């Protein structure tokens, strides 16, 4: 649906722009969460349900919370951010344009844009079978990485023994 895609991408873009330009850091984080939710909407317009819900679950439910916790536990959140300089802006815009060029040039290499419902099935069963057969090595490596992260977090959070004080 054209209108749905336009609305959702407008929300995503507005959220993304707000996330980098607002004064208040917490407002930036919330705008980033809106941008993530908009991205999930874009996935839904492409009928990729699993990816959309995973996007919501991971980005809005975990990454935003991570950002929020980092803000809340490290900075004095209620103070407004300082004045903005223009040099980081130009660098940021330049990097964004580079990334856009890279993505746009990669689309024809992947086979060109496909209309929805053209035989590419994003059903959960198909995804599960593909993950477990063709991409199982990547899956297991990711699992190992996550386990290492979990163990590292546990080690960091362990209480120090008294003789190390």
């Amino acid at each position, binding site marked *: 649906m054209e209108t749905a895609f336009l609305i959702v991408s407008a929300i995503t873009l507005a959220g993304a722009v707000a996330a980098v330009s607002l004064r208040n850091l*917490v407002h930036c984080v919330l705008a980033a969460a809106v941008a993530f939710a908009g991205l999930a909407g874009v996935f839904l317009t492409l009928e990729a349900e699993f990816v959309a819900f995973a996007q919501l679950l991971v980005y809005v439910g975990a990454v935003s919370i991570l950002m929020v916790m980092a803000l809340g536990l490290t900075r004095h959140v209620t103070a407004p951010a300082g004045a903005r300089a223009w040099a980081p802006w130009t660098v940021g815009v330049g990097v964004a344009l580079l990334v856009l060029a890279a993505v746009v040039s990669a689309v024809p290499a992947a086979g060109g844009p496909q209309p929805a419902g053209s035989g590419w099935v994003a059903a959960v069963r198909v995804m599960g079978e593909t993950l477990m057969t063709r991409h199982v090595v990547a899956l297991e490596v990711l699992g190992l990485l996550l386990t290492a992260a979990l163990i590292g977090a546990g080690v960091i959070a362990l209480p120090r023994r008294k003789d190390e004080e």
Partner: protein
Amino acid sequence: MVEAIDQVFVNLKHAVVGWAPPAWQAWVSAGLTVAALMGVFMSLFALVVLLERKGLGRIQNRPGPNRVGPWGLLQPMADFIKMLTKEDVVPAGADRVVHFLAPVAMVAPVLLAYAVLPVGRNMAAVDLDAGVLYFFAVGACIELSVFMAGWAGRNKFALLGAMRAIAQMISYELPLMLAAVPAVMLAGTLSLGGIVEAQAVPAGGWLARWHVLTPWGLAGLALFTIAALAEANRSPFDLPEGESEIVAGHLVEYSGFKYALFFIGEYLGMFAVSGLGITLFLGGWRSPASFLDWVPSYLWFFAKLGGFVALFIWLRGTLPRVRGDQLMALAWKLLVPMALLNIAVAAGWHYSAGWSFAGAWLARWGLGLGILGLGYGALARGLYESQGFGPRVYRFAD
């Protein structure tokens, strides 16, 4: 005849949608479904608020509210009028936009979660292919609203309460999802309609194959219930809104209708996650035995929901509030390992389905319950001794 009563709401909706002009039919259908769902669950909310106060009262040897209306039935009405007419206080230094949006960000995802619950036969609003994942994704959006509520008032204590609340909610999301995994695994599909289909009465039998009637289902339901209590901030896990400790925590800057919205969000979230538990483990709208199939499916669903709600009220009246560190230890050191063990037991149950020697049923149950029991014993004993869950031991300085 039984079929007609069972499908009366579906047929009613189709009839009304048929009257609308064809271009509008999709919108009318969606609007009707949404209105019906919201109406039913909002009335259920009002009823449960009253039942909870009366139930807690009876547990505590007092009658509960009985002044307003016969048996106190108009008490929710009185509460509603009180909430509407209270002054809406926004602190002077507060962030008005975030303060306003936090209740909205709490109630909207919870209402979205009802879209996938199969309330009766053919009565799910949307039967998504990845229904379970949709439910958890929508539930994850609530944590952001908790932070917004705690931060918006520019109140250090509210922020602290919000941080604790978020820590509790993300810690218990993991056992919730891990407890749901065996049900999804053995049903073979993420769609909630498909999971209910998988718990049908097998051909030639009379007892429905609810997931709860298996060792992993029993443990899974217990784990799911505990994690659901914690997700919904219900006693004994109501640390985020503990009135006697941190005066409503992240909700301390809210009054009037916004507070009522948070309240509504909490109760509706409780119903939604109970509905998911019913669908995953208790067979959704299915009757337990084939000779009880004449009872309409929606009545079964709401009866099971009522059972869950009664259990939650019972637990609230019985158990004291869990302390913050005990809460975290319970989630990470007991529930997550038990949920992982549960997945292993479910896999074992699936692969031992082919056993057919004499006493196979006993062997399968024994194996499942044995592994789970050993795991629980070891983990619980470890927690007991390391966390000091038992009676307190005092050491005096002499």
